[in-house]
């Protein structure tokens, strides 16, 4: 049987002219590392779930991507993390949202799928469940990166009512979200 792994690290205003060679090389290195990690897992006969979790953990641990360490900041200066996982064989699924102390949210989503009768848990309850499952919990400061913190300060300075896509493009900067007069800009 074929075995294949595909990953993404986010979409948006990612332009070669804005990217310095060192930064581009760092992204390519981390994406390659995630692919290698997941490939080792499936080549070794483990499951696609194991490969998905292994690859995403690499990207969550890298400060380059908006997930886990390196996540963006909310208006209140917090890193609120979400994750989901789904098994194509059983249609089992697990998800968590709005957590701030779980080092690898994808592993918590998988624990919800495999160790509870639920599909989704949020906030403090999800963190309590993660602790019961012996997942690694960290101080919220673990997720801090200067670049994302500066991104929040910039957004607050430009207009504190606007949420920002982690790679929003010019189009999205002007798009008005009528309901809350809440523009999006990169």
């Amino acid at each position, binding site marked *: *049987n*074929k*075995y*294949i*792994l*595909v*990953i*993404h*690290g*986010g*979409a*948006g*205003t*990612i*332009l*070669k002219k804005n990217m310095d060679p060192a930064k581009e090389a760092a992204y390519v290195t981390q994406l*390659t590392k995630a*692919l*290698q990690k*997941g*490939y080792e897992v*499936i*080549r070794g006969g483990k*499951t*696609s779930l194991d*490969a998905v979790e292994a690859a*995403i953990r690499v990207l*969550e641990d890298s400060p380059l*991507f*908006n*997930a*886990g360490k390196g996540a*963006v900041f*909310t208006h209140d200066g917090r890193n*609120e*993390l*979400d*994750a*989901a*996982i*789904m098994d*194509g*064989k059983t249609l089992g*699924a697990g998800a968590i949202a*709005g957590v701030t102390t779980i080092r690898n*949210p994808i592993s918590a*989503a998988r624990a919800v799928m495999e160790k509870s009768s639920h*599909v*989704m848990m949020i906030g403090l309850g999800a963190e309590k469940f993660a602790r019961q499952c012996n997942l690694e919990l960290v101080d919220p400061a673990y*997720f801090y990166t200067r670049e*994302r913190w500066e*991104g929040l300060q910039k957004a607050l300075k430009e207009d*504190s009512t606007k*949420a920002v*896509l982690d*790679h*929003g493009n010019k189009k*999205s900067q002007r*798009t008005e979200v009528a309901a809350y007069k809440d523009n*999006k800009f990169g």
Partner: protein
Amino acid sequence: TVGAVALDKMGNLAAGTSTGGMTNKKYGRVGDSPIIGAGTYANNLTAAISCTGWGEFYIRSVVAHDVSAMMEYKGLSVAEASALALEKVAKLGGEGGIIALDKNGRIAMPFNTAGMYRGSVTENGKIEVEIYK
């Protein structure tokens, strides 16, 4: 946002997505990533899908399940279904990307933004990493 979709030696598919959300977001706003059927979906009959982009539009279009449904009910390929699902997002005014992998190992990675960090590895170990359009 980061995501992965995989097909293993037993022929089983899986999908996963993890995110920090949006800068400066308020009120406990949650995007599509943790919503099964919106940002993340997997079904051995069709495909494994992980999305990235403007979450509100992916939730409203139920994008990840939409890709699977178009494959199951209309017999579209993973590439056709992913492209069509992304078109629906764009029509609503949203932007972003999708990675999808079907049960036969066919890959689709459409996106309607300037770039998307993405990559794949096949059973012979061949790794491809892309960033720009």
